[in-house]
């Protein structure tokens, strides 16, 4: 009796879905292709909405409050190459299926899946954690002159550049009760071990101590006016900032600034799409009823499924083609 009820459900029923292979006479397409393009149109609206939010938040940001040069460009470039390669392999997998070359299909599809997994692994095990270990303090504009040696605003205004209000690097000491105390403690131990200095932790309870990024260690240098391709290590210089002079202080997490809020939202949503694509590809690659086993009874149907999933994957690659330059480079 249970199996009789199951048969009403999709996937378990015997009913044949029309136009999975033959084209519908009115549209000239098999139905899934129409469906995926409509879905991609809705995805354009989703990412388009987020992109336009990014554009106007950026245009509307006050000078000095929209950072740049904070993301790892070589790693981002490599991840871009991985996604482009996977776009090539997925279309080669589809072509192999259309030409009834099963072994080639399995090979190219496996590479596509691995590329997707690699992209996510790099993002989640390196890029994002690296941000959570970095700290930034926005100094109150009224108190900024006290920290001029770390901000370099005289040089910036003389050369017609936007002011700098942030001091960033690794947190070595935080005010009493700060949620970042543990991170600070860990970094301070590491700092003492590396430099054999013990001035990282101050007696006072109400200040932040930062091991400075190169840009804050030497803000007047022309070297630091533009971002560098290769990431540079932290300097061994430290800055002490009084809590009363701080407008906001946090790790490079979404709460840090609208820049990071939009960065994590857009790359996070994009990453979820990559994950979704990988799962669908896995389903189509495994020797199961809806996957590679379908090749034995209806190879054209499997080819169409791969084409449709591939279209989604190319869209995800397209989004990244825009995300990468606007967040990492520009």
């Amino acid at each position, binding site marked *: 009796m249970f199996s009789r009820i199951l048969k009403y459900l999709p996937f378990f029923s015997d009913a044949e879905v029309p136009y999975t292979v033959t084209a519908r006479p009115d*549209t*000239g*397409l098999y139905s899934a*292709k*129409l469906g995926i*393009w*409509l879905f991609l*149109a809705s995805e*354009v*609206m989703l990412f*388009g*909405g987020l992109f*336009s*939010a990014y*554009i*106007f938040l950026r*245009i*509307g940001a*006050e000078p000095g*409050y929209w950072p740049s040069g904070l993301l790892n*460009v070589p790693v981002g*470039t490599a991840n*871009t*190459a991985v996604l*482009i*390669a996977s*776009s*090539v392999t997925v*279309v*080669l997998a589809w*072509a192999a299926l*259309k*030409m*009834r070359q099963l072994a080639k299909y399995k090979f190219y599809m496996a590479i596509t899946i691995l590329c997707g997994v690699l992209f996510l692994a790099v993002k989640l095990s390196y890029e994002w954690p690296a941000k959570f270990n970095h700290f930034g303090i926005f100094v*109150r*504009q*009224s108190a900024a002159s006290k920290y001029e040696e770390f901000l370099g605003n005289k040089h910036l205004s003389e050369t017609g550049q936007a002011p700098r*209000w942030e001091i960033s690097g690794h947190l070595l000491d935080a005010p009493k009760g700060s949620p970042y105390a543990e991170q600070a403690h860990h970094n301070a131990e590491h700092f003492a071990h590396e430099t054999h200095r013990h001035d990282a932790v101050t007696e006072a309870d109400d200040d932040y101590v930062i091991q400075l990024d190169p840009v804050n260690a030497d803000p007047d240098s022309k070297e630091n006016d*533009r971002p560098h*391709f290769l990431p540079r290590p932290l300097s061994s210089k430290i800055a002490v900032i009084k809590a009363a002079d701080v*407008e906001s202080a946090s790790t490079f997490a979404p709460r840090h600034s609208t820049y990071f809020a939009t960065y994590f939202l857009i790359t996070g949503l994009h990453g979820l799409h990559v994950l979704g694509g990988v799962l669908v590809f896995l389903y189509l690659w495994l020797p199961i009823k809806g996957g590679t086993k379908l090749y034995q009874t209806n190879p*054209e149907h499997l080819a169409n499924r791969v084409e449709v999933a*591939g*279209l989604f994957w*190319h*869209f995800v*690659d*397209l989004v990244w*083609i*825009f995300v*990468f*330059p*606007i967040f990492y*480079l*520009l």
Partner: protein
Amino acid sequence: MDHSHEAAHIAAHIGAYLKVGIGLLILTGVTVALSYVDFGSRANNIIVGMIVATFKASLVAAIFMHLKGEKMTIWKFLIFTGIFAAGLFFLTYLAHSDPISGTSHSSHS
């Protein structure tokens, strides 16, 4: 189109897929390199970056997504999508241009 005809048609395109793939990788390098060239202002750099990105995106759309030679139905969907997306950008622009005066302010001191 019977199957064997279609298969040969696709085999002829494999070369194009590989060439476009390599082209995209090269253009990625170009995008990175150009971002370190001073085009006068940050806005100009953004425009250059977006031109390269748009060209890359159109390669993906035309060749990988088979839009080149696709049925009119799909193109009609995409034209409407473009119109609605432009409308969406316009709405966000209104948030920035702030036609109702006095509601936009600095949050920094």
